[in-house]
């Protein structure tokens, strides 16, 4: 047990800090559209050219080959420098890429990994379907082998940044007669193939965070399969373990910043008595204190994941604890903001707390609802028996 950063780690932090100071874009990110995509890609390319992309990815594919703690340092310094968020590159960097590293062929790795790191290509996810949400393995999108291709027909939903993506991690059912988990394959789908259609879904914040994707006779080469035919569920578990595990590193740092700004809000907003600043209200002060302690615990959960990653490549089911804790805390932070704001909470500004509050429901649902995380914790961390209702 130690918190020590080696002198190399410290030097790394200094170098990152200096480089970010010089290179973080001055102009803010455009809110959406092709300009947003370009902004994200350009920032990724800048990182790549500076030698900072894929901190803990293997160096043979353009990564830095450094231990995960360096990735954490990188995220910390990015937050300190107010560097742009990962944006459209989230899936490629945080679970698409790591899945290829763990399960992909040499060709797949050689093609995609450097391109993801350079910001040349954008990845998105194609897992959920309209009737396969929490019950992901119920997916029905069909893939039929025809020569060297899989011919895909069906529909996906909740695909973030689909309209910006070049490739997609796509789950299809390739053996409808096999057991539910036994007939699924994991594909790399080129989003520009004929027959792929993207339709954005509008959310309650007024934005389109995600889309439906429709597939009509889309021909995907079999060489784009990750893992074996019908063995995609194993690969999926790897993807989900990355999604629920290490992908939260930057989210946690972001949330810590949100909490500090919430404290500022409480200093500058009149409290429930209509007279003193909210932070002088005994109850609000206690809630703020507890939330600050909890965001610290979230950070420690992340550090524990990093520590475990020193021993094993693949994040374990404990990632679901981090996800659950993160989702619950994210929601409560925004609820406290609403309590502090009182009537002002009705006034909606694009970057304001009200939108944050509405957006927080995404966090509790996306990447597996909190109920699903509790099932995983109960069954895979604690070893409680599986629910027979779930066929």
């Amino acid at each position, binding site marked *: 047990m130690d918190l020590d950063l080696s002198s190399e780690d410290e030097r790394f932090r200094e170098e990152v800090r200096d480089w970010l100071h010089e290179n973080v874009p001055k102009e803010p990110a455009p809110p959406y559209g092709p300009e947003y995509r370009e902004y994200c890609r350009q920032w990724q390319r800048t990182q790549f050219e500076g030698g900072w992309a894929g901190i803990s990815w293997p160096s043979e594919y353009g990564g830095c080959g450094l231990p995960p703690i360096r990735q954490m340092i990188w995220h910390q310094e990015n937050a300190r420098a107010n560097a742009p968020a990962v944006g459209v590159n989230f899936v490629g960097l945080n679970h698409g890429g790591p899945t290829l590293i763990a399960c992909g062929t040499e060709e797949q790795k050689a093609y995609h990994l450097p391109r993801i790191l350079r910001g040349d290509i954008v990845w998105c996810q194609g897992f959920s379907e309209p009737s396969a949400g929490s019950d992901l393995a119920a997916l029905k999108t069909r893939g039929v082998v025809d020569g060297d291709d899989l011919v895909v027909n069906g529909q996906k939903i909740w695909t973030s940044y689909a309209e910006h993506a070049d490739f997609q991690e796509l789950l299809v059912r390739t053996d409808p007669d096999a057991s539910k988990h036994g007939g699924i394959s994991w594909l790399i789908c080129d989003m520009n193939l004929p027959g792929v259609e993207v339709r954005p879904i509008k959310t309650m914040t007024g934005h389109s965070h995600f889309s439906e994707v429709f597939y009509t006779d889309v021909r995907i080469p079999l060489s784009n399969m990750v893992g074996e035919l019908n063995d995609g569920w194993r690969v999926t578990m790897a993807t989900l373990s990355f999604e629920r595990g290490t992908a939260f590193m930057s989210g946690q740092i972001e949330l810590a910043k949100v909490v500090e700004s919430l404290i500022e809000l409480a200093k500058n907003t009149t409290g429930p008595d209509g007279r003193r600043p909210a932070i002088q209200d005994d109850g609000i002060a206690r809630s703020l204190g507890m939330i600050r302690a909890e965001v610290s615990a979230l950070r420690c959960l992340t550090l524990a994941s990093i520590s475990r990653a020193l021993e094993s490549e693949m994040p374990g089911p404990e990632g679901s604890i981090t996800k659950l804790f993160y989702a619950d805390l994210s929601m409560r932070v925004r609820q406290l903001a609403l309590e502090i704001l009182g*009537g002002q909470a009705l006034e909606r500004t694009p970057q304001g707390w009200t939108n944050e509050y509405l957006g927080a429901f995404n966090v509790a649902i996306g990447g597996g609802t909190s109920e699903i995380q509790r099932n995983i914790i109960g069954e895979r961390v604690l070893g409680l028996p599986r629910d027979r209702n779930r066929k």
Partner: protein
Amino acid sequence: MNLLPDSQQQEIIDATAGFLESEFPLSRLHESEEPVPISRELWQTMAELGWFGLGLSEELGGTGFTLAEEALLFRELGRVLAPTNVLAASLAVRVASLAHQSELAESIIGGNQRVAIAETADMESTLGENVTGRFRCIDGSDVELVLCSSAQGFALVTRDALGQGDVVPCMDEHTHLEIFDIGGLPALAFAPTEMDSIQNRGSVLAASMLVGSSEAARDQATEYAKERQQFGKPIGVFQAIKHKCADMASRCEAATWQTFYAALAVRDGHADATFQASAAKLLSAKAATENGQANILVHGGYGVTAEYDAHLFLKRSHVLDLLIGTHGEHLTRVLHEPTAA
């Protein structure tokens, strides 16, 4: 003693629900992302139904029912997320009547002047012969009168006299939100908080709308849980969902009966009327916002889409929560006012 609606009251509920189903279908909120003011025609129809003077005695020009029937009406209005103008009109009629402005009262009852409510936004506002302070006006884009509300009471002013306020996008995109800074504007009519228990009446009516919203959210979540299949079963089979719905039902039940009780206690001038009215507002606000949140979560991914209704209930519950006093004011009252014997 009987808290259940009697047969005449049940008729009011049924007739109102039927009317609202055709005139205020929830689908209307998916046809526009802007607030849709109630049309003049529809307003006139409501006037003819006697809604604006429902709880006012016939000798004062009202329909001759009581706050109990008003509570039942507003519960139905809350269910369909109707704009708050009916509530504003109902209180405005009473304020005008209490200020002996019978012509004004008649004009509102008759549907000739439409009303919006404006809730105080700071502690410095004063209400009386004149109105001063900052107010958040709800659903006031196309009205003739504005009813200013604060802990001091209610004051009625003309919309024209307020000039152009600061129109702000509202959390609820179907609610028009405009901020006015008012400096010493003479009121058409003023009723202080205690007069005819006017503020308690307002609390009960707002609570009734919140009850309706919380019940509709419960019903939506329950219906979805029966229909939506995952793992080969309706999701309502799973305790994570089933128990969320049960908690929604529990919150509704508590808020509903507390609100009905408060309506009667205020109507009959009981010593605990203020306590009961504030308790109703607090419990119904809790039920509406928590059920609004739970409804979204029961709907999973679909709950956060604009296409589904779930988010509409949550957003509206926060708007209704703002009306007639802050949590802090009501909590202070329930802690210090006398309770039931």
